[in-house]
């Protein structure tokens, strides 16, 4: 009987390990980011107006790493992508990784129409 318990305990332990140190749970986790509300375009920003108003977000750290990993594979032959900098993109969501700066993602919204826009210029 003791052997069975021991075997069961071992199996439970193995299953827990297989799920990794952080099993998924419906839990919100903290992140830090920055935002910028502007009119015009990313490269030529003007004060926002009733006809032109956008928001760009930039996030880094664990959230960016998880987004990056979900978005693979790396983009090849795009500006900014080289041996140091890896870039991944889905529609207007852009994530990058470099050994120097770590993980970061950018995205944005057109606040007049609500559509998704890029959060960086590349």
């Amino acid at each position, binding site marked *: 009987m003791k052997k069975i318990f021991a075997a069961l305990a071992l199996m439970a332990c193995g299953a827990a390990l297989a799920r990794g140190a952080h099993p998924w749970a419906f839990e*919100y986790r903290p992140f830090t980011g*920055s935002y*910028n509300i*502007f009119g015009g375009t990313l490269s030529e920003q003007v004060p926002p107006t009733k006809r032109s108003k956008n928001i760009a977000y930039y996030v880094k750290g664990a959230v960016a790493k998880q987004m990056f990993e979900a978005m693979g594979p790396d983009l090849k032959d795009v500006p900014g992508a080289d041996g140091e900098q890896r870039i991944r993109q889905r529609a207007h969501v852009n994530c990058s990784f470099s050994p120097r700066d770590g993980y970061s993602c950018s995205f944005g919204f057109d606040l007049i129409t609500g559509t998704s826009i890029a959060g960086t210029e590349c």
Partner: protein
Amino acid sequence: MLKRVAITLGVSCCLLTAGGVVSAAWTDMQGDFPGQYIIYGGYPDKESARAPSSGDTKVAFSIRGRAAKDLFDSIGPAPRPELSRGEERCETNPKVRKRRLETIACRHHPKDGYWCTFGFDLSTGLAVWGKSGDAMCD
């Protein structure tokens, strides 16, 4: 003497602040902020969400404070049904103001201030709801 210094300082601060508001109104709508996020599969509520998998990974963001207020203010209250935007109030608590712009949802609750939520499907990059719409009135 002290009183006079205090008044002078107070007046100068007011003038500085007023000047600052006018000239920096636009550049003030930016900054660093803390928020919360979740990576999930399925739907963004506790009952239907599941572990993310290949082809079904989404991210939901939840933002409070000044970053949420700026977004709330920027969305504006104008009722524009053709763009799925406008301001509503919760039937259960009319003091709660809800503003929506496509997949962005914001609210102002008298108890906990401004809150916004939005998200992305990371398999496609398309914008999706953050927390489900029902959460707005809780």
